[in-house]
């Protein structure tokens, strides 16, 4: 959980010198000694808005006075610095981007369409068909591109919806408590006693009869996954809302929405981002399971789980039809998990900055 940014700003050596040095340049006498030039506290006047130049000046002067250059870095900059030193996370990111390009830009350059039927039936990998063809004559390479992009698209939509909804409900439950909390916890109780996959199968069975396209699958996955995010955000908020800086916000009359949006969510951003990433990995796996069982992506659309299910039938005769989608699936999930690990380390403020 990231440290409160307010606390960090007051404690950091540069900002302590900031108001005192800045005020002679642009401030009014009334503001001197009144602490940080917070636009909320001061009442009007041009001096109320801290001037970037003045602040930069103040920083430089403070640094010069102290005899060393300490440059305060934002939460994002520190996280970035830590992330680019995480070797596995970088490899994961590179792999993920490469696969993403393969699946999105690849079809533009490849001379077969994923639905196109060639006159090669069940041939092994060759120059014309790098991943071979299936028994109907589909080019497996083109199918892989389409399947990978469907799987990743679905997972990204799931992660997006689940994160937004989970943060919203988790924030309401964690900050206000009451009925939002009760509702969330009861819903979660149900998911804790019935396997998530089973609930999804029931949902998918109802939905796929109406419309089996990937957006519907993404929606029902999100209907399950948001609860995990919501529980997480709720937990973080429950501990944060008792902290002094939130009490201070209450004291100056900040609204609930302002406290949640400006103070609580920025402080919970680490766990939220990490879990959004891990949701992508889980969504890819669960979508594959649904498609494998015939309740996920429906033909003519293809996804990795669907291709694996197709390849299983011929696994001993045409093993490459099984190997390629299975390997892609594992590599994508591994890559996303590594990115998640890197983000977890990067966004954890208890880690020392190694950069």
């Amino acid at each position, binding site marked *: 959980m990231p440290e409160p940014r307010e606390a960090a700003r007051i404690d950091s050596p540069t900002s302590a010198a900031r108001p005192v040095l800045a005020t002679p340049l642009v401030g009014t006498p009334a503001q001197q000694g009144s602490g940080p030039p917070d636009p909320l506290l001061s009442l009007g006047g041009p001096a109320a808005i801290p001037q970037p130049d003045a602040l930069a000046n103040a920083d430089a002067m403070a640094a010069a006075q102290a005899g060393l250059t300490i440059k305060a870095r934002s939460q994002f900059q520190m996280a970035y610095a830590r992330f680019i030193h995480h070797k596995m996370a970088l490899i994961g990111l590179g792999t993920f981007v490469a696969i993403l390009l393969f699946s999105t830009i690849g079809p533009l350059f490849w001379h077969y369409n994923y639905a196109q039927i060639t006159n090669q039936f069940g041939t092994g990998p060759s120059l014309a068909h790098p991943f071979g063809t299936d028994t109907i004559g589909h080019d497996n390479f083109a199918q892989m591109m389409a399947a990978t992009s469907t799987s990743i698209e679905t997972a990204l939509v799931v992660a997006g919806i689940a994160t937004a909804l989970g943060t919203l409900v988790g924030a309401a439950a964690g900050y206000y408590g009451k009925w939002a909390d009760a509702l969330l916890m009861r819903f979660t109780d149900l998911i804790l006693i019935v*396997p998530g996959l089973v609930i999804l199968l029931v949902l998918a069975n109802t939905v796929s009869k109406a419309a089996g396209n990937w957006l519907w699958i993404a929606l029902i996955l999100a209907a399950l996954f948001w609860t995990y995010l919501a529980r997480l955000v709720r937990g973080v908020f429950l501990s944060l809302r008792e902290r002094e800086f939130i009490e201070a916000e209450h004291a100056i009359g900040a609204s609930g929405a302002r406290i949640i949006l400006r103070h609580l969510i920025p402080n919970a951003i680490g766990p939220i981002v990490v879990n959004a990433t891990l949701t992508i990995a889980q969504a890819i796996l669960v979508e594959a399971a649904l498609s494998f069982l015939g309740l996920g992506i429906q033909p003519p659309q293809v996804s990795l789980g669907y291709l694996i*299910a197709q390849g299983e039938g011929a*696994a001993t005769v045409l093993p490459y039809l*099984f190997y390629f989608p299975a390997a892609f699936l594992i590599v994508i999930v591994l890559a996303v998990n590594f990115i998640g690990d890197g983000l977890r380390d990067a966004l954890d403020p208890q880690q020392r900055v190694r950069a």
Partner: protein
Amino acid sequence: MGAYILRRLGAGFVVLVVGTFALYILVSLSGNPLANLMANPHISPATIRAARIELHLNEPLLQRYWTWLTGMLHGNFGISTTGQAVGPQIWPRMWVTMQMVIPATIIAIVIGIGLGVMSAVRQYSVRDHVSTWFAYAFYATPVFVIGILLKDFLAVKVDNAAGHPVLYTVGQNNPGTTGAWNIFVDALAHDVLPVLTLVLITYAAWSRYQRASMLDVLNADYVRLARAKGLSRRRVLYVHALRNALIPVTTVIALDFAAILGGAVITEIVFGWEGMGRFFYQGLVGPVTPDVNVVMAYLVITAALVIIFNIIADIAYGLLDPRIRYA
């Protein structure tokens, strides 16, 4: 303790009733079980009417749910679309599923905790790195991929090498096996691959949790003190450190039990077991769909198993951590 367990059961029961209501409506609305009959020109309207009455489809949905709920509370799961009672069909299948799930859970706990402790004690050793890599790989692999790999590649090679079937890949036993010992060996030969599948997807996360919590404990002051006052390394590790390190992992294992049952659905389908997971899946997708009573019976039994397992985990929790009071 008794009162605590009763209260847990009560809370679980309330959630179950509300949950079954939502799921019953959802499953009922997913299709018409009589569609196949109605599409068949050789079936008379009278037969269809009789089937409709037998399945209570002539009643309003809420009334059907009420009939089902009161029946279920009396131990009657209703009839499936074939007209047979669901109860006598699903209980034997539950034991088939347990044949896979119970050994898998126990083995996964032992392997997960064992590898986690080994990784933590020898942090950054070759063994730690190898174990980490395997955990990552299995964590990223879907259960059906592991199942298919074991079935089509490992089992075929082993059986070919042995010259006769050693590892069976279809079904939970050979019907007609006689003699207690033969039945046991036969069940074991069928059990190996499905259990291994479930173990591999399950232990990975547990070993990572165990490693992390063991590292936390090993760096604690009281462990250093225990070593400093002259206790043997073995005693410090396994009595002082491990007991505390098991506490967080117990929670994770309890929460993951539902996921193992979910994984068992796929494993049963891959290995062709006549377990309750496959029964549920068939009730959901056909050929006659939806078989509401079959699906609901599976959901209720699964939820009951998860609640029981969580109570066992709670008791284990109390044994590991004497600070816990069941008020």
